[in-house]
């Protein structure tokens, strides 16, 4: 019978956030993924730096975060202690899933971190530069297969943007979606697809081992430690980052929003947070206030355009 007891304990621990929490952070994804790790890193930093007394993390997985955001918007209205982690993938998922709840229905606070996309080919590939790839793409768009993460995600969007910038019809992009970076990486290493596209972290160890070659990175400027030009330097006007953000509940007073923003700023500047970023290889792309609101609106509009161009959103 001890198992019944244990089951209820575990189920209770996972299902119910404790009422004593100063902040409760929702990760709208299963434990282990990027958003979950962001939420848990925030939890540790907020507690260690004494910005908040006790922080709870709650996972509401599903459908690119759209299930989580729907629950967050309806259940936490006016609760100044509730936070939610989100990111660029959510912007795309809201559009492709036609989610009735969008980022307008919560209070975006700040962009926290980001990862840039890289385009890679196997070391043995005849493609040496972005120009080679573009030439192939122009000759026959279908013959260039791109391996990356889920359909409509950052990887897919980047492939679409590259085609568009190169003057190739984005609907012709032969994008092969794999579940998660691991499976895509195997297909790239095994030479099953022409090129791979994902965040740099997914490929780092293979690049360092010389099994993959980076053709370009999607950042504004060249990054230290990555021996590759930017897409811009390669003649394609594409800058994109897979960012992660934190949002507060809807219906907050301006004072409440200010207080949350101040706490997040303290968090971002803290040593614990900065140290964690270093060990995890996340890039600090902190942006808050009106600048973040403007950037977010821009990203949403650009994403909608490219998803329509690719044909994923009508």
């Amino acid at each position, binding site marked *: 019978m001890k198992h019944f007891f244990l*089951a209820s304990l575990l189920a209770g621990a996972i299902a119910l956030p404790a009422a004593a929490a100063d902040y409760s952070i929702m990760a709208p994804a299963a*434990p282990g993924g990027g958003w*979950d790790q962001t939420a848990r890193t925030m939890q540790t930093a907020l507690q260690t730096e004494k910005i908040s007394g006790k922080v709870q993390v709650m996972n*509401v997985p*599903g*459908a690119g975060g759209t*299930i989580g955001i729907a629950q967050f918007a309806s259940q936490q209205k006016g609760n100044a202690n509730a936070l939610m982690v989100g990111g660029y993938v959510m912007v795309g998922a809201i559009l492709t899933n036609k989610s009735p709840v969008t980022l307008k229905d919560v209070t975006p606070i700040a962009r926290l971190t980001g990862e840039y996309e890289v385009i890679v080919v196997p070391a043995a590939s005849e493609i040496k530069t972005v120009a080679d790839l573009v030439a192939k793409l122009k000759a026959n768009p279908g013959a260039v*297969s791109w391996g990356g993460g889920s359909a409509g995600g950052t990887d897919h969007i980047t492939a679409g943007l590259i085609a568009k910038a190169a003057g190739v019809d984005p609907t012709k992009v032969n994008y092969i979606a794999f579940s998660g970076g691991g499976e895509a990486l*195997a297909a790239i290493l095994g030479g099953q697809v022409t090129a791979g596209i994902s965040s740099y972290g997914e490929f780092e160890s293979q690049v360092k081992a010389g099994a993959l070659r980076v053709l370009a990175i999607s950042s504004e400027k060249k990054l230290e430690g990555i021996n590759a030009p930017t897409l811009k330097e390669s003649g394609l006007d594409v800058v994109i980052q897979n960012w992660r953000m934190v949002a507060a509940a809807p219906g907050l007073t301006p004072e409440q929003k200010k207080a949350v923003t101040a706490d997040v700023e303290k968090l971002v500047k803290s040593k614990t947070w900065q140290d964690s970023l270093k060990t995890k290889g996340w890039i600090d792309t902190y942006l808050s206030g009106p600048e973040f609101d403007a950037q977010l609106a821009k990203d949403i509009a650009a994403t909608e355009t490219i998803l329509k161009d690719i044909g994923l959103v009508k």
Partner: protein
Amino acid sequence: MSTFEFLLQGLVSAMEPMNLFYALIGVTLGTMVGVLPGIGPATTVALLLPVTYQLDATGSLIMFAGIYYGGMYGGSTTSILLNTPGESASIVTALEGNKMARAGRGGPALATAAIGSFVAGLIATLALAFIAPYIVKLALVFGPREYFALMVLAFVTVSSAFGNSTLRGLTSLFIGLALSLVGIDQLTGQNRLSFGVPDLLDGIEVTTMAVAMFAIGETLYIAAQGEAAPDKIEAIRGSVWMTAQDWGRSWKAWLRGTVIGFPIGAMPAGGAEIGTFLSYATEKRLSKHPEEFGNGAIEGVAGPEAANNASAAGTLVPLLTLGLPTSATAAIMLAGFQQYGLQPGPLLFATNPQLVWGLIASLLIANLMLLVLNLPLVGLWVKLLTIPKPWLYAGILVFATLGTIGANPSVFELGMLLVFGLVAYIMRVFDYPIAPVIVGLILGPLAEQQLRRALAISQGDVTVLFTSPIAAVLLSVAAIALVLPLILRARGRGDALSQMAASED
């Protein structure tokens, strides 16, 4: 230094008292969560990740490895005793294991699962140490078309192995295939059959389905029979330990399960379930007692249990050598590595040999610990079956519901659990097999996605499916497995088949 010396050095490091302690915590926690339906090893490792910030890298990875192996083992206990699979890799174990438990042979079923897991874990961990680089090369040769061929083979062998009526088996399989279409299509991002319900966007969770089909359906069935139910379950008949005959029938199944499970676990898109399906089908084919399958054949527990543990070790091959996480747990372990600034991949063996070999050695130790921990408990576990039936089944209901809610706090998920439980009850009443539904739900999306990926890469050219040597061989084996029994039956009206079966003795 040779591999062997590295391994010895690793064993010394893993034998340090603190590391042994972490391994013990790991296997104990792992076994406990493996027992709970819904809460798998992946969730446990994820929840423990922040806790281990304070530990050193070796210690926490050893603990994770213990949880991983423990979880793989723990799932079989509830499958066998309560017909409630703790995670998807132990679904097949429930088929024969629970029948054995009801016939008073729960002890031998648990023992063969424990020893089989140990044997498979031992062989597979050694294989991980010595032949990992070669296996990885093989795994990379597998592209979408090879995976598709493997799935076809799995469908053919598995569908013939479940139930007595082909028509009923196929009907169940297609129910599973239809359900597997629900949710966001992975290749285009479009919704299918979700009817505007956001909870359906990610498809139907396999563990929810398995718990509903096995545990809830069974409970309803027993309850509906009321007083007319057959005799009460005999908890122990004969010895609680395995007899000489049990050993004789188990050991080959363990070895075959290991050989099937390890490479499939090592493949980037393999997954532990597929190994268990193939192992079950193989054991049924090769058994000298095919009539016992469906009524509690010990090979049907021994093989799949070995396969599931071997594939757990197999999963670590691409994780450590390529940095490829091929299961949810491996993905979280990867996050654990990164927490310490370690990047698993081709360089890990060179840059951190101490850590890698310490981990491999601790897997060996965790494996032994599991056996020591679980064998003495067999007698205790079996007593669960002596609980009066109304109590036992009420308990199973509570347990299944809590597990599902714990894994995903959603009212819709709970509703789904009950609706599919009802479906399973109806299927049971009309004598349709349950397992093919789960098989369809798991294999359906894999087969579909790999086929579409293969065709997308070839830009619609169907011939690519047959032109790769590996795919061609796998498809030929599948075709033979499908056609041969038909030809034999047509020729000798089944005489040849029954003769073949007889001459195997």
